[in-house]
């Protein structure tokens, strides 16, 4: 059913259709609307056989989900930013225990300085935690990825994060096709757990494992993600067949076949990337893009096959590996090892800075001429950083960096965008 609907509401409706049994909620912007909506649905009796638990922290949210999942219930939670970091220990624990929890990330920056706006530093910080990570490009895809995430998680007994760009998607009202309960029921089978806490058949879960077996346990976590490289496209194909639209999968190309320059990006920025590609194509610039939907497992082979005909690859990153540059870029370089194809990184959209078509187009034109550095910060205010660097070098007690910069910039309301 087509609806003009907020992204968070759409995600909540998709989660509800997957028949969750335990939902744990702790508020954090920009994810909060999702659990608010779900809470209302549970309370009103619109989600049958489901408990909604308001907890005291994100650490508890995921811990309650861990207990529920280990007892055989389909468990869901959502978080963002600081919340994801606060639950970090439980994030690793859930995957280590092989519990197929689905969690939405409303992608948001991490402080300090505190910042509620979108980038992808939060989920990137958990990229090695053993969860599958899927990135939605649109709210339609956010809906569809949640529906695909449940059977994916439960078939492999691996938790899945569905990453949805904060505000840009979570708070955007747009047209979304919400499937029917019957459609989703036909696609999402009932949860058959691999392990369950049950007095009839007592098991010990979470025992200590020493050097004699730890490597093997970790290898099997890796192995299950490698299996997901096969299952994710299968689920996307089955979804397309059943729901009549293509969503999900490992990667998705756009005008990439004859491109000299290929752009790689995750999430909603792909919309802007495609618009810019269309503009540049009109100017006969041979450029295309590849959207990475599954970042974990990383589809290195598929990506290489799509990128290896290009002369250069540009990775647009909404996160920063401080001290080296790009996070996704490192993986893309690994996928392209031995090809000699240069990979450039453009760090963009940090803390919600708008990635404008103008800025991206200018950058990509330069990149297409190989006139960019290995790492570029899009729209970086050089005047601002030079003044602050000067202050740092001349005054020992130079004060807090963020506050110094804000004082100089004055009111920021008219500078966003």
């Amino acid at each position, binding site marked *: 059913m087509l609806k003009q609907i907020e992204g968070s509401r759409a995600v909540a409706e998709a989660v509800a259709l997957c028949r969750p049994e335990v939902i*744990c909620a702790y508020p954090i912007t920009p994810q909060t609307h999702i659990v608010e909506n779900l809470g209302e649905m549970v309370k009103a009796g619109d989600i049958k056989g489901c408990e909604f638990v308001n907890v005291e922290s994100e650490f508890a949210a995921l811990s309650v989900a*861990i*207990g529920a999942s*280990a007892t055989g219930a389909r468990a869901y939670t959502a978080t963002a930013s600081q919340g994801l970091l606060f639950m970090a220990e439980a994030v690793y624990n859930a995957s280590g225990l092989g519990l197929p929890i689905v969690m939405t990330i409303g992608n948001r920056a991490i402080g300090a300085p505190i910042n509620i706006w979108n980038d992808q530093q939060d989920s990137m910080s958990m990229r090695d935690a053993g969860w599958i990570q899927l990135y939605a490009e649109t709210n339609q895809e956010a809906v569809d990825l949640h529906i695909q995430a449940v059977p994916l998680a439960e078939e492999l007994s691996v938790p899945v994060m569905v990453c949805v760009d904060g505000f840009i998607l979570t708070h955007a009202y747009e047209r979304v096709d919400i499937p029917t309960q019957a459609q989703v029921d036909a696609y999402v089978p009932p949860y058959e757990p691999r392990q369950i806490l049950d007095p009839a*058949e*007592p098991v010990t879960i979470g025992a*200590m494992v020493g050097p004699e077996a730890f490597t093997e346990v970790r290898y099997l976590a890796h192995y299950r993600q490698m299996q997901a490289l096969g299952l994710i496209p299968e689920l996307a194909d089955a979804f397309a067949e059943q729901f009549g639209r293509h969503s999900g999968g490992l990667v998705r190309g756009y005008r990439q076949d004859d491109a000299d320059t290929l752009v790689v990006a995750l999430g909603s920025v792909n919309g802007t990337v495609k618009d810019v590609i269309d503009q540049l194509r009109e100017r006969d610039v041979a450029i295309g893009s590849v959207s990475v939907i599954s970042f974990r497992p990383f589809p290195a082979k598929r990506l290489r096959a799509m990128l290896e005909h290009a002369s250069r690859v540009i990775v647009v990153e909404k996160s920063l590996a401080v001290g080296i540059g790009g996070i996704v870029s490192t993986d893309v370089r690994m996928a392209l090892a031995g090809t000699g194809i240069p990979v450039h990184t453009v760090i963009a959209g940090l803390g919600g800075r708008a990635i404008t078509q103008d800025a991206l187009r200018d950058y990509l034109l330069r990149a297409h001429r190989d006139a960019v550095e290995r790492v570029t910060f899009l729209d970086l205010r050089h005047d601002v950083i030079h003044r602050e660097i000067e202050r740092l070098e001349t005054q020992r007690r130079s004060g807090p960096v963020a506050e110094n910069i804000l004082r100089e910039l004055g009111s920021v309301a008219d500078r966003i965008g």
Partner: protein
Amino acid sequence: MRSSHVKFYQTGTFTVGNRLLNDSDRSVQSTMERTNSLNSGHRACQGCGEALGARYAIDAAMRATDNQLIAANATGCLEVFSTPYPETSWQIPWIHSLFGNAAAVATGIAVALRVKGRTGTRVVAQGGDGGTTDIGFGCLSGMFERNDDVLYICYDNEAYMNTGVQRSSATPPAARTATTQVVGPQPGNVFGQGKNVPRIAMAHEIPYVATATVADVRDLEAKVTKAMSIHGARYIHVLVPCPLGWGAAPHDTVKLARLATESGLFPVFEAEHGEVTDRSTIRRQVAVEEYLKPQRRFAHLFKPTLQSEVIARLQAQADRNIRRYNLLSGETHR
């Protein structure tokens, strides 16, 4: 072959052999049907109070629930000594997730059981004092506040024993630990304000709060049994001496637990919905020195010079407990 005298009755207690009691009054541990939920062969130290307490508590909870019990365990001694896989001492469904989340994991189990309609199965969470009063405190308070259907049992040995005897918020003043060393002008742990988690639990007005010690395991069994007859958040705080961490002889574990209660330092009581409903009175009051002296963690209070002032402050704590819970007069209801 060497032999030793066996004492059938401990002096100064009400202990009687189970043979002399009616079947219904006998302890869970004395019955053939006891479940040995924490089975023998685990790797706890000799004289471990926590192993003793957990065995009595969980077997009692098993009997009270007709063996329909699931346990969530915090990281700590109990977790480590019971599950060096492929060995496990647990005869019940048991999960260990993290150090600080046992209460929340238990909530998840309880909620899942409810949603699955498995309402006959009950949930126990357990942890040491570190996992309860420090790192797991947020999750514990959350579980209390929501009144989730979980019995949380804290086995309090008054320090982080699993990591090598470091101070926790349950470590008593003046006690020596690896992080409150016997050096400087005020050796041992500081005199802080204390962190009385049973009283904090009572402040949540949850249906049932109790304290117990391994000196009176029948009392512990009775309290666990009572707790399992109630739904909602319940909390039992059990004092479990640790020979290693306290610097005491393994055979003194029960004796030290008794001295802790008889001195007034560890009051044993029950509370319902925030109100104290019963307490175990002191039968033969002892000065705190009697409790402190056998423990090397307090040795610096006696040698090289007697620290009368410090001991007096500890005695004042005991006296305050005696007044607060009226431990010296009147009948214990049970």
